[in-house]
């Protein structure tokens, strides 16, 4: 029993980061109809900023750790938004709805940004100090308070995004553009501006995931790339462009990874995900919650 609870908590912890990452990817796909292979670089950038700022403010300036983390988190979001702004204006706005073009552009960005990170940051993994030290036990399973906070913050962001997409005017235009861009434009929705907002929100979600992940794992310049393959599997399972699909898919993949990785081994778990995708493609090619291609 304790073991299962422990594995479930692990599922939630991995899953919350997967969900944030996949949500950004699926949102960008929904409004721009492109697959952003450079999504991991937003994640990495945030983690790198957090680790750099923390080491400066804690070790040099001597500020308290929780305060430094708040500053680092905010700075990470700002910097990723700036990167997102630059790559959108100099690149992505020319490849809206162009699958092959956007693939090439985002791969080029991936190379360019990862190379830049390596030069600026160096190849050595670095860890940040515990923001909130201590352990608690839940139903017999123990976990650090830090990881519990990670799950809670990720859940709040996810719920916030869900509300944004389903309750606000911006969310309505995001959904309208995702469903049928031309009909949305006929209703007076400025497609390009909405696409830009969608892209920035997606980048910010990846940045949140990266900044949170930096608290529980050592930071390297390729930290975001590991998430990419799994995020793709998640959004295929959930259906491209579906917010709820990304949430459910993220939790499902985390469940397989956590339980499969314990009872068998991690590579069997990854293979199981792939088999799941293959079966799903045969039965329901548009994903669990996706719409059929028009």
């Amino acid at each position, binding site marked *: 029993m304790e073991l299962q609870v422990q594995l479930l908590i692990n599922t939630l912890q991995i899953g919350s980061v997967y969900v944030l990452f996949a949500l950004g990817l699926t949102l960008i*796909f929904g409004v721009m*109809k492109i*697959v952003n292979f450079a999504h991991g670089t937003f994640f990495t950038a945030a983690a790198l900023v957090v680790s750099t700022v923390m080491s400066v403010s804690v070790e040099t300036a001597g500020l308290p750790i929780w305060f430094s983390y708040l500053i680092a988190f905010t700075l990470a979001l700002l910097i990723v938004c700036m990167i997102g702004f630059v790559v959108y204006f*100099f*690149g992505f706005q*020319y*490849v809206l709805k*162009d*699958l*092959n*073009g956007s*693939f*090439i*552009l985002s*791969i*080029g*960005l*991936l*190379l*360019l*940004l*990862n*190379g*830049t990170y*390596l*030069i600026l940051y160096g190849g050595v993994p670095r860890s940040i100090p515990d923001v909130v030290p201590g352990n608690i036990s839940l139903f017999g399973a123990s976990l650090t308070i830090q990881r519990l906070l990670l799950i809670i913050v990720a859940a709040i962001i996810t719920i916030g995004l869900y509300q944004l997409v389903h309750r606000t005017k911006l969310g309505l235009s995001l959904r309208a553009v995702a469903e049928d861009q031309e009909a949305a434009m006929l209703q007076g929705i400025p497609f390009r501006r909405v696409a830009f907002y969608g892209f920035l929100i997606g980048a910010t979600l990846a940045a949140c995931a990266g900044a949170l992940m930096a608290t529980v794992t050592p930071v390297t310049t390729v930290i975001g790339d590991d998430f990419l*393959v799994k995020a*793709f*599997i998640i*959004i*295929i399972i959930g259906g*491209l462009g579906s917010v709820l699909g990304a949430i459910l898919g993220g939790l499902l993949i985390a469940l397989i990874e956590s339980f499969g990785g314990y009872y068998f081994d991690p*590579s069997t778990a*990854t*293979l199981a995900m*792939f088999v799941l*995708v*293959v079966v799903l*493609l*045969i039965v329901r*090619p*548009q*994903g669990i919650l996706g719409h059929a*291609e028009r």
Partner: protein
Amino acid sequence: MLKGNQGLILCILIAIGAICFALFSGDPYYAQVVIWVFTNAALAVTLRFVLLIGELNIATAAFFGIGAYTTAVASTILGWPFFISLLAAPAIAGLISALFGWITLRTKGPYFLLISFAFTEIVRLIYTRTDALGGNSGMIGMFPPIELDTYFPAIAITILAAILFGLYAVERSNLGRVFKAIQNNEDIPRSVGLNVIGLKILCFVIASTAVGLAGGVHAYTNNVIAPADFTYFVAVLALAYVKIGGEGHIIGPIIGATILTIAGQFLHSFGPYENIFYGAIIIGALLLVPGGIVGLGERIKAGTLIGRAER
């Protein structure tokens, strides 16, 4: 550009020249570079071949790897003779691609792109976790037989050139026209009674078989293969060759592969700057020279070089 027989004859002459160069140059390094150019050209052309039906096929990298590993297993573990282990590569790659295509080609666009990406990474994961395939360090010891050793570069280039000409022939045939029709609007070929899914699978299997053969040649050329040689990045570079050369004509990817492979030989010493350079080239080519070098040639002819090309 290069549409008539003159262009074809020129290409045949270049291929014969490359084979003669490999036979008589005497410098193994230059012969190796020529083989790399042809291998990369084969990768780019097979990637473009699936683009004919409108799908971006990252699994090109996976089938390149499957071909290389098949040849490696056949020649080192099973001890099969040279030509048979070489031919096992396209056979196995073709079989697996038929199964993979049958499952995945019902989807299209982004779904196919993502699933082929995931497939490539997972096949690579299988190599690293299988001890019989050498795990992370890969396999060594694929040597052509001693008596063929001096001729091997020439044989390799002949096979790779045959792949290029073969795919060109298919593209120019009626079958190739049907593939392009599927890209334009697949409902129209379907409306005249063609089995569109079957044709898509056929196109995919032809490309994968060809790239599997190139993988087999790669195993014998390199003598050493490792999982890290077959990441999705192989397909990304192939796509860069296609984009820089231009995808309008089959000669485009070949030009792109030649230029970037030779440029890459000078860039190996730059470390992390190498990736930045490739990234910048890819972005620059996409945004500034849409249509690639072939497209550039056509625009000079048409007198529309100044100003953005239509997208």
